[in-house]
């Protein structure tokens, strides 16, 4: 459904997105992950037709984005894009009329009880649910979500993800940007970006399985931290002990002059992310 190929965007000489290729099929949820500045937002803007690529292209349903009917795409920005001074029902009606579709039922979405409340007066969790209903009022076949559950409690988050999965189960292609391991685990696949490039894609398990992190139980002297960093390692203070990404146990033992208290363990998703991003 979404097919990005060799997607590149330069701002002057700076490549914000550099030769990025990925697909999101119908019914699939793909997570787009990257450090701040990795190019996620630029990628999403090109996908939404808000920015023209310098080279490469994004096709939606086989058509170039500029030729795609806007009703095909649903988008929930991080700021949610709701009108805070309008009620929940008025927000939905506004969006439905803009897209020329019937106003969906708030009761069916479980939001009937708050239909007359102003958006600015309801909790963030509810605002996020309203933003979903608004973004989906025209039954889009592509849904783009920027940090969809930011600031929501665990149960509210689970409920939002149920909605996202229901949308995918209806056949929509869903692209989600997120920063969190818990969220990444909800995606069928993740695409990891660093410095504008796609550095890896796969399931979260596939990403994590590729990496190991060295744990050091005893304190590391400042000089050794410097030497580890000079060898390209990322040295992290854990609680307790230390975690070293980017070198194996043998190399770490050599630098520290001792293999006691040094062991390898599976990387966390964040540690794998650091290994890929640096």
């Amino acid at each position: 459904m979404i097919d990005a190929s060799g997607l590149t965007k330069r701002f002057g000489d700076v490549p914000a997105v550099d030769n990025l290729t990925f697909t999101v099929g119908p019914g699939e949820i793909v997570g787009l992950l990257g450090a701040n500045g990795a190019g996620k937002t630029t990628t999403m803007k090109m996908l939404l037709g808000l920015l023209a690529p310098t080279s490469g292209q994004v096709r939606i349903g086989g058509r170039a984005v500029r030729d795609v009917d806007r009703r095909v795409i649903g988008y929930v920005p991080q700021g949610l894009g709701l009108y805070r001074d309008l009620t929940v029902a008025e927000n939905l009606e506004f969006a439905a009329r803009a897209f020329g579709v019937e106003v969906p039922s708030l009761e069916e979405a479980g939001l009937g009880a708050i239909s007359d409340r102003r958006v600015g007066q309801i909790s963030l969790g509810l605002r996020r649910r309203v933003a979903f209903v608004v973004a989906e009022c025209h039954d889009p076949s592509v849904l783009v979500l920027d940090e969809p559950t930011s600031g929501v409690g665990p149960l509210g988050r689970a409920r939002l993800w149920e909605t996202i999965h229901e949308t995918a189960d209806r056949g929509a292609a869903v692209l989600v940007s997120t920063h969190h391991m818990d969220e990444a685990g909800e995606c069928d696949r993740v695409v990891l970006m660093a410095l504008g490039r796609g550095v890896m894609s796969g399931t979260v398990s596939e990403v994590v399985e590729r990496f190991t992190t060295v744990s050091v139980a005893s304190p590391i002297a400042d000089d050794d931290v410097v030497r580890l960093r000079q060898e390209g390692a990322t040295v992290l203070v854990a609680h307790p002990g230390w975690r070293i990404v980017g070198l194996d146990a043998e190399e770490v033992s050599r630098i520290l002059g001792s293999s006691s208290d040094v062991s390898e363990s599976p990387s966390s998703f964040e540690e794998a992310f650091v290994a890929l991003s640096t």
Partner: protein
Amino acid sequence: MSWGADRVTVVFGETTALQEVSVDLRRGQIAMVVGGDGAGKTTLCRTVVGLENVSGGVVSRPPRTCFQPETSGVWADLTVLENLQFVAGGYHLALDHSRARIDELLEVTGLAPARDRLGRQLSGGMRQKLGVAMAVLSEPDLLVLDEPTTGLDPVSRLELWSFINRSAQEGRALLISTTYVDEAERGDIVVALDEGRVLASGSVESIVDSMPGRLFTASESLGETSWHRGQAWRVWSPDGADVPRASPTEPDLADVVTVAALSREMS
């Protein structure tokens, strides 16, 4: 030596922002407070540092307590170095001592190359790290950080956590709020809040052990005690009875906090 909040209640007008919330803060330990928007995390942080009046209960803290609010407290028009020097001046730190301490903090936070950059020119991760560096500059005994990792990408978050862990290793007590349960698992103790009330509290292990009933996984939703998690569904059986078409599974902290919220929603 321990500090913290003991059955603290905070009321704003007709709203009870915190209801009999307790958190125990000890040297070298990290206490995490987790919950969604409006759960009471910020109020608890502000109450512990003395910025809110309590209607009931007791708060205790050491004289040297530092607080980093959610907005990081970095001055946009000062450079990284000037921000740190300004705070050092505010604490009347001796010049030699503060110079050495600032240099050390710039190194461990990785901010040294950005020392002359203005606050407004920093990325979110750098700004948060600078905020924490400013908070630890005076070497407080208790450090309270309100959502320091919100909006940070995984790399910045891990770097910030490395700095936070170092601060605990140095013997500080820390209270940190977050909206993410997986992040809360990094703490020695966790307090999960919902609408100002404690959903669960204690060590991760004790919270997980305290879950009533049993937990199952299923390939589809099996009613109102089901929720989506990862690539499957979780199903909570409040009375521990077997659930048809579902397999038993061991809960983790996120499951137990969700169960607690679900239980409250259903009651």
